[in-house]
């Protein structure tokens, strides 16, 4: 196992290196270099930059050296935690990151957990009681969840909350707690805001998971081993959880790899509508304004999340399914 883990970690590092090359190319893509853009943005704001600063900057980012040297300098900066400078927001990228990453991960991880916690029981119920009233209700709600765009759901939710209950649900904090230190009060305030984005983000995902689990489980319920277990005299409930559900979970577990990056990149509309201080609106802004260091750092971050997620889902799969653990493929 340790051997396997070590091998996976080495491949992960190599993949990240390859990704960094792509990201570096992306950063280099806009015409001119970083400092010319910086000067342009400053002079557009009516400020002038003295020659010494320019030289210092050019020197710092090795802009006059060959591309490979620039890449090496950029990479070693990243390893030291310096992701470059966002000229759009006029702050170091790492600073923007550290401000938002905690909140972002908190919201999105909770959304993912809610997604799973809701969809697994519903999916199982739907499959076991196929074509029952409950299954039809779950199916209709599921299709609604899939069909309604997130931003529309968020807008309707905002309208309903404000008009009927007089509550504003945008942002994640009330004004007085915005820049306060973490305390019980601030957490309660956070909780009173965060349910809305979590609800919006998790519905669509949950609806999808319910459909996948229902379909998988329906296949598994007809397998002969379920009949064997019934012939043993097991209760229906214990039987279903112990046998078909365990096998039906495999395809779900293998989606863990990309669920976080997907949630981050797909939740930006919600985040903009609800004015959330998470990472995804920043990614959009960075891409729109060609803020390449910021965009590059975000892409690197999502790549890292995908790799870690895939590793976690592979380890989980190996844990729940001995066929995968023992390196055998295709046995059913």
């Amino acid at each position, binding site marked *: 196992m340790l051997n396997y883990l070590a091998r996976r970690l080495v491949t992960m590092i190599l993949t990240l290196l390859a990704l960094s090359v792509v990201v570096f190319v992306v950063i280099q893509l806009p015409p001119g270099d970083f400092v010319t853009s910086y000067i342009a943005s400053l002079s557009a704001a009516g400020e002038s930059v003295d020659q010494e600063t320019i030289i210092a900057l050019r020197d710092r980012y090795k802009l006059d050296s060959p591309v490979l040297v620039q890449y090496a300098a950029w990479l070693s900066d990243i390893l030291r935690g310096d992701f470059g400078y966002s000229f759009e927001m006029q702050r170091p990228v790492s600073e923007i990151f550290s401000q938002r990453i905690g909140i972002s991960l908190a919201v999105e991880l909770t959304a993912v957990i809610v997604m799973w916690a809701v969809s697994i029981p519903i999916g199982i119920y739907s499959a076991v009681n196929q074509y029952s009233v409950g299954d039809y209700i779950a199916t209709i709600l599921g299709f609604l969840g899939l069909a309604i765009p997130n931003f529309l759901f968020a807008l309707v939710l905002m309208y309903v909350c404000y008009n009927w209950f007089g509550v504003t649900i945008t942002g994640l904090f009330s004004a007085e707690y915005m820049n306060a230190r973490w305390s019980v009060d601030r957490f309660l305030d956070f909780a009173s805001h965060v349910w809305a984005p979590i609800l919006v983000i998790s519905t669509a995902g949950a609806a999808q998971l319910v459909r996948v689990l229902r379909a998988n489980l329906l296949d598994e319920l007809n397998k*002969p081993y379920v009949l*064997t*277990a*019934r*012939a*043993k*005299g097991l209760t229906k409930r214990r039987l279903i959880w112990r046998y078909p559900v365990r096998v039906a979970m495999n395809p779900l577990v293998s989606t863990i790899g990309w669920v976080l990056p997907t949630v981050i990149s797909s939740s930006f509309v919600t985040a903009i509508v609800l004015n959330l201080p998470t990472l995804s609106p920043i990614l959009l802004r960075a891409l729109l304004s060609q803020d390449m260091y910021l965009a590059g750092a975000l892409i690197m971050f999502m790549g890292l999340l995908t790799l870690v997620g895939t590793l976690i889902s592979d380890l989980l799969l190996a844990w729940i399914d001995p*066929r995968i*653990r023992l*390196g055998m493929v295709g046995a059913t």
Partner: protein
Amino acid sequence: MTAQTGKTVLEVRGLSVAFPGRKGETTAISNVSFDLNLGQTTCFVGESGSGKSVTARAVLNIVEPAVIKAGAINLVDVEAGQRIELSGLNPDGAEIRAVRGARIAMIFQEPMSSLSPVHTIGEQIIEGIMLHQDVDTATARDRAIKALRAVQIKNPEDAIDRYPFEYSGGMRQRAMIAMALGCEPDILIADEPTTALDVTTQAEILKLLKGLQESHGMAVMFITHDMGVVAEIADQVVVMLHGSVVETGAVDQVFHAPVHAYTKKLLKASMGLDEAAHGRGAASSDEILIETHNLSLAFPSKKKLLRKPGSGVQALDEVSVELRRGEILGIVGESGSGKTTLARVLMGRFQPQFGEAIYHTRDGVAKDLNDPATFRDGQVYREMRMIFQDPYGSLNPRMTVQQIIGEPLLVNGLLKGAALRDRVGELLERVGLPASAMERYPHAFSGGQRQRIGIARAIALDPRVIIADEATSALDGSIRAQILDLLLDLRSELDLSILFIAHDIGVVRYFCDRVAVMHKGRVVETGTAVQICDAPQDPYTQRLISAVPIPDPRKRHLVA
């Protein structure tokens, strides 16, 4: 045997089961009555769809989505003299669950898919024991090991912690039996338990079941479509047709004085395979179509995660066979003997490491089948066609029969439009299906009809050689005979040569001219079908032949 032998433990009277549907009910079985006696085996025979399995499941009250409409199932506790009526119980209730697994246990046809793939054998046996007996985990584990030892699994202490996919087919069925017998039931229901197994493994499992029945004194309800198996093990026979019992009786009476016409037909179909088919052997000539010399192919063992790679598998070991024009050459062996690998080498799927495989085309050119480039112009594929084992899996469910049969004609650019349609109709009629069948999808056909469609597809290009890989293994007795007869007719009409791959040596005498017996990648014996069946020389062939059940209860030789 115990003193209770012969006493009735289960009485089924007037049992009817129906599937509810939108257009009313479909009757699965109607008015079925029989008894099961302790220490005796009752065999249920009939073709697929005759209601044997539904009857078995009704005894355990697991028939959803169907429902038991009428009848009584009385389980008798011989010692206490009590009886329980099972058919009226709630299918998920505690009373029926106390019967399932404890007093009536069941084993199934597919030992792989009938065991959970993600639990160890031990977990699955222990679960059943702990469910019905008031014991702790350690005791249950000891009992499970004892049960595994009773079914003759080697190193049960080690085997108990293994997963089903680490077992061979025969071992899995043994593990199933151990699981069923974990709670010492009065009744064992065995639903086609040996159909998926090789003949030698089948003989071992039948022997094991008989021995266990004698030591436990239980009643066995054995479902099969193989009359040979019935003759070997049955005390009583129940013959089913279209959901009804058409004949019940002691085994000797059913075999030697059958009353119902259907019973006679079943017996005739099974006996028929013991004779060679009529008018054969005349066609074969000395012209060689396919020849192989010392073909050898080793698969490297899979590099397993977290494990050291073991030595590889020698799938083919110096295999030399030849297929002559007009003959049917049987390649016989157990699973894993390399017979399918040989077929795949001939079709260019694998390249052997040593040896040569030559195909002589219609124009007399010798093609080297070891060279992937040989297959590029498609000529070999036009002249050598395949028929597959699984009539369900080998037809695309989303294509109509016309598309399926017409595809080889279309991709080779031979026919299209109305001409293609006419040709497909002609092919369908040739294999005994109406031309109107071309509009329909494969799911509308039975297994035997699907296999006919597969044959029509194979002969569409007017081939010279047909490779039939277990083409009749998935079919019931009388349907199998029909398909074999169809292939025999086609052979003489179309001047075909057939390479017939089978694990069932029973059909070989009927169907093949010559036979090559394979064992562990080697051809151990080659000869005419009669010679191999009547006077086998190699000890392996002798073992294989002697494991074939004979459809006559007076000639029992496997379990006696």
